[in-house]
């Protein structure tokens, strides 16, 4: 149990660091909500290394704390929506056992942005934001693919060094 807490803590801290680094890089295309999603790297990796409840907790902590530190209440709400959609779809896809880490990560990226923009459109009541959906979905796919590649590299290291998954 203590081990789980410690490992969970490491993951959460790592996700926070990635969030912070991301907030330093100016990455705006004039479209609200485009984020590199670097922290998702930690989540995707955690999909294969952590137990489900631990993973959810890590994601929640990351979103809430970085939302409070680096954003406002609205970005927090949008992040939560995006993070929830993303995590949900990735867990479902992994459960089917039929997909590789690459497409799971791609789907996660797409649904992350989808959740964010849907939340923004609902909160601001400006449905024209949905116009940005295709762009964000495309961006989500690209970042998802990149994250998937990196995650696979990281995970392979675990595979090779210990024959067991951590969970």
């Amino acid at each position: 149990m203590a081990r789980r807490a410690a490992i969970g803590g490491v993951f959460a801290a790592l996700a926070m660091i990635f969030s912070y680094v991301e907030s330093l890089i100016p990455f705006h295309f004039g479209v609200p909500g485009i984020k590199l999603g670097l922290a998702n790297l930690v989540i995707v990796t955690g999909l294969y290394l952590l137990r489900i409840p631990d993973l959810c907790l890590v994601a929640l902590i990351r979103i809430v704390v970085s939302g409070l530190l680096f954003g406002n209440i609205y970005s927090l709400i949008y992040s939560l929506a995006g993070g929830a959609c993303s995590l949900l779809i990735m867990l479902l896809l992994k459960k089917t056992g039929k997909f590789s880490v690459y497409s799971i990560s791609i789907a996660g990226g797409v649904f992350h942005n989808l959740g964010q923009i849907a939340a923004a459109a609902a909160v601001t009541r400006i449905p024209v934001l949905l116009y940005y959906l295709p762009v964000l979905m495309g961006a989500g796919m690209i970042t998802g693919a990149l994250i998937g590649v990196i995650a696979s590299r990281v995970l392979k290291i675990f595979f090779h060094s210990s024959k067991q998954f951590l969970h």
Partner: protein
Amino acid sequence: MKKRKEADPFRINRYDIILTAALAAAAVICVILFAGFHDTSEGAFVRITVDAEEYGIYELSQPVQIRIETDRGNNLIQIRDHQVTMLEADCPDGYCIRKGPISRIGDTIVCLPHRVVAEILSADGHADEFDVIAQ
């Protein structure tokens, strides 16, 4: 350790290709569905401000009646058929009601005594044909 018949997470299989293709297709569908939102020639929204503070932004396409009650008085704004009209107002001059329906980008209905303003916005928030109206 239980052995499950799971796909190798590091191998790209046909399910991956199907999923990725499906997501790409969904993005394309979204382009088609939501392209209409970005029409800049016709007014798309109406912004209502009370005492220079934003009260709300409404779609011209959604019929609705908005009742605004302040300690200065009452106003009833109607959005219908892509037009905005001041239906009722208990202000002394009634210019806002006399204005009639508005629908073009930049058009406004102003109830000066009650400080209620309704302004038509384009889909991206400002008028394209002109910058300001002299009246």
